[in-house]
């Protein structure tokens, strides 16, 4: 069953189309990656899924119901944003206590453990925390909420590599024991690639990739060799990217051609490279 179902979803602001006919499904009890460049429409989509914004047109269902002003649905959803705002006089412990009231499935013991894992000063006011520590508060709330649908939108501003690894490890561990639907939106594709079961790439408001993460990993390849040999091998498969130097050609292909690789080297393309090559280049906004 799907936790999220979206069909032909369009979101227009004045003179700007943020989402353009988006269709996707997030299966229940799975970890999904929502990837794309800044301004691609990821945050807009998550705001619509969590009832914070109303789409211009299209169908949106969360656990089978429209999320808009629907407390039965929204009580099962936790959305951790990039720069979450809390009442600044709150202490860490008070922020967690407030989250505990809002989340039906809250696990206080798990939250305590995460506070220790991230070495957070529980009695310090939020306004005195560093950027990374504030991000850790958001991550703790997202994980300890155990919400049936938990969305993390770039949750780790200011968090160092060690703290991010703590997040990934705790996420996997807790997901294994308490399966739920996780949507992770991030630019750190290499770091999260192995955690994901399903990947959706949004580019300029449209879905350009929607696939099983492990299948993607096996499909796309980087082919290098003499220009002639590479062209012969890649014939019929439109390259995502090509670069040429002194008669040597390298192309990134979305799938492996069904012919023997004669005189060319074929290497798998990392998820990060695949995403970069599948996304429109150049600055936007």
């Amino acid at each position, binding site marked *: 069953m799907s936790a999220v179902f979206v069909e032909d979803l369009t979101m227009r602001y004045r003179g700007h189309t943020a989402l353009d006919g988006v269709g996707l499904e997030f299966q229940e009890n799975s970890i999904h990656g929502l990837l794309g460049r800044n301004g691609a429409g990821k945050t807009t989509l998550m705001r619509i899924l969590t009832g914070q914004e109303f789409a211009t047109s299209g169908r949106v269902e969360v656990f089978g119901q429209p999320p808009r002003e629907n407390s039965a649905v929204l009580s099962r959803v936790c959305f951790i944003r990039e720069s979450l705002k809390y009442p600044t006089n709150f202490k860490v412990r008070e922020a967690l206590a407030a989250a505990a009231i809002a989340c039906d499935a809250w696990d206080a013991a798990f939250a305590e453990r995460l506070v220790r894992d991230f070495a957070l000063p529980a009695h310090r006011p939020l306004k005195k925390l560093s950027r990374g520590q504030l991000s850790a508060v958001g991550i703790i709330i997202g994980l300890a909420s155990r919400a049936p649908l938990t969305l993390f939108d770039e949750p780790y501003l200011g968090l160092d590599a060690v703290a991010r690894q703590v997040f990934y490890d705790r996420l996997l561990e807790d997901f294994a024991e308490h399966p739920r639907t996780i949507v992770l939106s991030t630019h750190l594709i290499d770091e999260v690639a*192995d955690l994901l079961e399903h990947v959706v790439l949004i580019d300029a408001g449209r879905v350009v990739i929607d696939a099983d993460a492990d299948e993607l990993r096996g499909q796309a390849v980087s082919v290098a060799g003499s220009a002639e040999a590479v062209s012969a091998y890649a014939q019929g498969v439109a390259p995502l990217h090509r670069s040429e130097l002194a008669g040597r050609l390298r192309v990134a292909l979305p799938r492996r051609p069904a012919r023997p690789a004669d005189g060319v080297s074929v290497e798998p393309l990392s998820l990060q490279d695949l995403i970069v090559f599948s996304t429109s280049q150049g600055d936007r906004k």
Partner: protein
Amino acid sequence: MDDGRPLFQQIAEQIEGAILDGSLAADGQVPSTNELAAFHRINPATAAKGINQLVTDGILYKKRGIGMFVATDARERVLERRREAFGRDFVKPLLVEARRLGLSAEDVKKLIEKGGQE
């Protein structure tokens, strides 16, 4: 884990490797999906796919409510399959490179014999 190849395949190969080198014995218990996921830092569903692949291939078997175990003849099965793949995965690329360098099959044979003595 390497970049590139499907992770479920890499998980399956690692377990096969452990069976080949004897660190997983016949009828011994295999780590659980969640243990594998935590250890390799990968999605549990992906780890499960690797395990299931080996069950389909008859290399592991399931005891309900307990876990996964190494089939009695798992080592022979893995050996047989790896030997079949050896020509395709190792010898063929070797010969392709040899041809590019102007080495005949006879030259390669000599090199292999020499390599054995070193």
